[in-house]
């Protein structure tokens, strides 16, 4: 426990205020999270319903190359298995909308999503647009009993629900930090090999050219980006910074909204430049980081909280003088 507390202090930069949800406006924060968790379960139903038009594709497709969660499909006919998975996900998503207060229902929602996403990815290649949704539905299983009744919930229940909320935030931002870590680690490796690396002005143009060649596709900004490497360079560096330090932001509330907005913009540009679309990630960033009605933070405070560069602003602030 002491180790976890020390980690939190370290990531908070030793200066940032703690999560307002934990020490200030405890009940208000809790009431907000209740709505947010419910919206999450409505979004699971949205996934089920927005994929109705893929049912015929799944039924017409050839046999699955099953990932482990759908390994059992080998014992049944392909179409029976697919109907079972699609029906189960739809039924559990509906249950989740109405009864997400029950842990058993949340376990079923998680299993429904796990089976459905595993089936979608059982065609020889794994895509990652729904992974966060599956993992978040797993974390939400840990919501304490009684969390869904704002008025009746005891302080200990509220604290546990807020902890699960923070874990969800951590999971979302950890995925971005891992993406950033991968790019930075590989940049140092490529640097050592004398190759173009992520810090090089040609990095983004190379990514764009390769992606458009791979898919034989056109993107609105991609061709322009290939020919303007000096403008592409700051975008690539900003992306690295946003991604690498994303997980730190969970512990620095003043930066959560701008960071989430930055990551949503990153997804928008990823589509405009590379034709890569992660709509559910944008939704989850918005839901878990942009919905809270928090008092505005001063720009000075935000700058001081910045990872890596915040120290410079803290030294320049009048207080430290």
């Amino acid at each position, binding site marked *: *426990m002491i180790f*976890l507390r020390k980690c939190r202090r370290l990531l908070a930069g030793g200066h940032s205020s703690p999560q307002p949800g934990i020490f200030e406006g405890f009940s208000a924060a809790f009431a907000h999270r209740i709505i947010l968790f419910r919206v999450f379960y409505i979004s699971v139903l949205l996934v089920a319903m927005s994929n109705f038009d893929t049912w015929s594709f799944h039924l017409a*497709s*050839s046999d699955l*190359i099953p*990932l482990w*969660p759908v390994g059992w499909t080998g014992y049944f006919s392909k179409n029976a298995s697919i109907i079972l998975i699609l029906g189960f996900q739809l039924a559990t998503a509906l249950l989740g909308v109405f009864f997400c207060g029950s842990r058993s229902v949340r376990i079923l929602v998680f299993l429904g999503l*796990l089976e459905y*996403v*595993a089936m979608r990815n059982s*065609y*020889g*290649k*794994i895509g*990652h647009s729904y*992974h966060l949704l*599956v*993992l978040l539905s*797993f*974390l939400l299983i*840990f919501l*304490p009993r009684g969390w869904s009744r704002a008025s009746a919930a005891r302080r*200990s229940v509220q*604290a*546990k629900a807020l*902890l*699960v909320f923070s*874990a969800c935030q*951590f999971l979302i931002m*950890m*995925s*971005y930090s*891992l*993406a950033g*870590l*991968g*790019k930075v*680690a*590989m*940049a140092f490796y*490529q640097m050592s090999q004398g*190759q*173009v*690396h*992520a810090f*090089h002005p*040609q990095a983004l*143009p*190379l*990514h764009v*050219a*390769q*992606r*458009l*060649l*791979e*898919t*034989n*596709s056109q993107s609105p900004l991609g061709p322009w980006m*290939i020919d303007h490497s000096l403008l592409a360079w700051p975008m690539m560096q900003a992306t690295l910074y946003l991604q690498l330090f994303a997980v730190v932001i969970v512990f620095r509330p003043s930066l959560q909204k701008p960071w989430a907005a930055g990551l949503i913009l990153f997804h928008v540009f990823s589509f405009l430049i590379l034709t890569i679309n992660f709509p559910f990630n944008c939704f989850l960033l918005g839901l878990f980081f942009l919905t809270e009605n928090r008092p505005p933070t001063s720009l000075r405070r935000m700058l001081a909280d910045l990872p890596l560069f915040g120290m410079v602003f803290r030294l320049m602030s009048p207080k430290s003088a």
Partner: protein
Amino acid sequence: MRSYCRLKITLAGFFLAYLALALSGLPNRDKEIFPFYSWFLFAAVPHAGNHYEVRILKNGGQSFNPPIPYAQAANIAIFPQAITAYQFIQKMGRSYDRGDSAEFAELAGLFQRDFLIGATTYQLLRIYYDPIERWHGKEAVTEVLQTIETTPAAP
């Protein structure tokens, strides 16, 4: 308070397990442990090097000269512009170059089944190019690895 601490430790355990499982899949990109993904997307900057491509020679009664790249074969390819198709072809090419004939045969069978419409004859090529130069129209250096003739699917 005790149950709060227990929950905190459980969640920390989940994140540690997640990291262990996600990062253990890194050495072999074809062995990802679903749903524990490392999120190492676009980690390496592409550079001049070998890639693999499928080009269609024949489909049904129609022959193509020059052969059509899979990504441009709209009426023959099921997913011509999907990144999944590109990545599947890379997987096939890597298994060919490793000399893993069993895996290659399996992947070629799956490719016919899931990515092609009708009986098709196609080439698997190894191509060497610099992405930006190729984007600007420079020809890639190509080498045919194998010509594969698929049989019509059973009714």
